[in-house]
């Protein structure tokens, strides 16, 4: 199971890279040779096409990455979520401000009532009431932030459904922040660099005046690694990550078996993050 998932993540990563168009790392795909498993054209072709700016034709069943957060596990071991948040903060050079006004957060904790304001929290199960939920970008299939962005600085990666950011194109108009119904986006109100505790050279820090948010660890997927938060909870099943469109994936097996809820699904954004309460 685990090796199968790793193989998949490699594909996801390569396709993510194809979107970014980094030719040096395309080698990864030739050694994977799994790209045709889904009946999709070899990833190298994807990459070549993307590098030339030509539109990549998507297979009818494209990859759509998603996440299931099993709150039962996190209720049992609340430190799992702390670890996941710490891993994300460290991986992405997220600044730690001491005031709420300037906060930058990719994944964070909030009570059920705040994460699901549309759901009733009247006589909520005590265990749910006491546990903090994980909050992050939902990587919507129909993201309002992408619709609102006037420069395509935030966009949906065709190959895997990740809602990504181009920090160098963002003009800082914050239209996406107003558009996001999940409060998932942060703005760099000032230079974040002095507030980064330990600098991770493998991921760029941001400059002031741009918006940022969770990127489902696109950069780690490209290296065949799991997202930082998923890795931090490894072996517990607290966070399951994978392709929602692949019937054989672990995430699909979890979704087929468990009852899950999504945040504010009534808005039609089709969130890709699911919660088992």
């Amino acid at each position, binding site marked *: 199971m685990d090796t199968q998932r790793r193989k998949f993540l490699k594909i996801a990563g390569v396709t993510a890279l194809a979107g970014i168009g980094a030719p040096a790392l395309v080698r990864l795909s030739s050694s994977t040779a799994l790209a045709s498993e889904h009946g999709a054209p070899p990833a190298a072709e994807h990459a070549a096409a993307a590098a030339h700016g030509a539109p990549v034709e998507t297979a009818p069943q494209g990859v759509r990455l998603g996440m299931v957060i099993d709150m039962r596990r996190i209720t049992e071991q609340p430190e799992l979520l702390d670890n996941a948040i710490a891993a994300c903060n460290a991986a992405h050079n997220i600044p730690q401000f001491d005031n709420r006004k300037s906060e930058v957060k990719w994944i964070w904790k909030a009570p059920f009532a*705040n994460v699901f304001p549309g759901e009733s929290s009247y006589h909520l199960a005590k265990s749910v009431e006491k546990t903090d939920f994980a909050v992050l970008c939902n990587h919507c299939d129909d993201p309002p932030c992408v619709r609102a*962005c006037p420069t395509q600085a935030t966009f949906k990666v065709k190959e895997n459904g990740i809602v990504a950011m181009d920090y160098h194109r*963002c003009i800082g108009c*914050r239209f996406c922040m*107003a558009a996001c*119904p999940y*409060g998932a986006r942060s703005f760099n109100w000032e230079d974040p660099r002095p507030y980064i505790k330990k600098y991770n050279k493998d991921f760029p820090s941001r400059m002031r005046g*741009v918006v940022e948010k969770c990127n489902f660890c696109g950069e780690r997927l490209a290296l065949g690694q799991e997202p930082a938060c998923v890795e931090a909870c490894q072996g517990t099943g607290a966070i399951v990550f994978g392709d929602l469109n692949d019937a054989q994936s672990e995430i699909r097996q979890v979704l087929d078996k468990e009852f899950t809820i999504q945040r504010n699904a009534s808005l039609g954004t089709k969130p890709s993050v699911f919660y088992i309460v």
Partner: protein
Amino acid sequence: MIEKTLKGKPAYWIWLAFLGMLMAVGAACYARQFLFGLGMTGMSRDVSWGLYISQFTFLVGVAAGGVMLVLPYYIHDFKAFGKITILGEFLAIAAIAMCLLFIMADLGQPLRALNVVLHPTPSSMLFYDMIVLNGYLFLNILCGWVILTAERKGVHPPKWIYFFVYLSIPFAVSIHTVTAMLYCGLPGRHFWLSAIIAPRFLASAFAAGPALIIIASLILKRVAGFDAGKEAMNKLVTIIMYAALLNTFFVLLEVFVGYYSNIPGHKHSIEYLFFGLEHHGHVYDNLVPFMWTSVVLNFGALGLFAWPYARKKNEFLLGLSCVMIFLALWIDKGLGFVFAGFVPNPLDEITEYIPTANELGITIGIWATGFFILTLLYKIAIGVEHEMEQ
């Protein structure tokens, strides 16, 4: 015609110097913000738009309001507006200039502003806003200038200009409609997610713009010997009254929908604006005094407008009621509408927004810039007017 701006009474120069001083303060404040980032403002992760965008929204309305002179004059041949239509067109230019400055002041990366043009994105309402705002600015500069030049030469304006004059009418409507669409198409922001936002914006615009024109005309009558004429003023008051009544009606409809449906999302922002929102034992009511001031000014002004003596015989009361309605609409749209949309945030948390001194400095600086441009343009218009009378 630009030479007209170079000659004036001492009061003219003092006024310009005063505005210039405020502009300098604004520029200094902006330099600080440019070097530090938007953290210099009171905006936050939760209230991510503040005074800049709210002023922008309000001023788009002021600019669109100019059409209330253009439309009767050019479409219905309402001759009494002949003298002041140019004031409407020039007001639109100054207002759009302020709008663009406010947008620039609000950008986190202002040097990348051209990305909007370099990477055009038809799915974004900001893309259309850029097109219609710049289009409307261009149309008003073109029409105002060509018609004024013709007037100065004592000839009829060239026929082709009327194409642009007529085009400017749908453009005026579109600038405020598209600005409303920036807000009313966002899922999850219940206060904004209402089909009545665009009509409401237009109604308040058609009151605020003409109100400012009446105020300007009354001032120009005293300082520049420019008389807009009784008939024109009376007609403008009628327009303001109906527009303000419509706006009030639309706002009350929002209140009804919120409270009668009793859906928390629809109710919370209105509650926050007018009564304060209780949340975990704390009442958040920053905007309550402003909103009630707006209500009192709004109904007070409507009462004064309805009184024939104040409307027709007493210029002080007429000016006062116009100042009142302008302020009422400025609070309603230039403060409350934008700020309340962010309360509560999508995670049902409340962060209140209080602008910083630096932010106020920039805001005042941009308003001063707008009035500086407006003064120069009106000086030209009235200079030409006087030249014709001689």
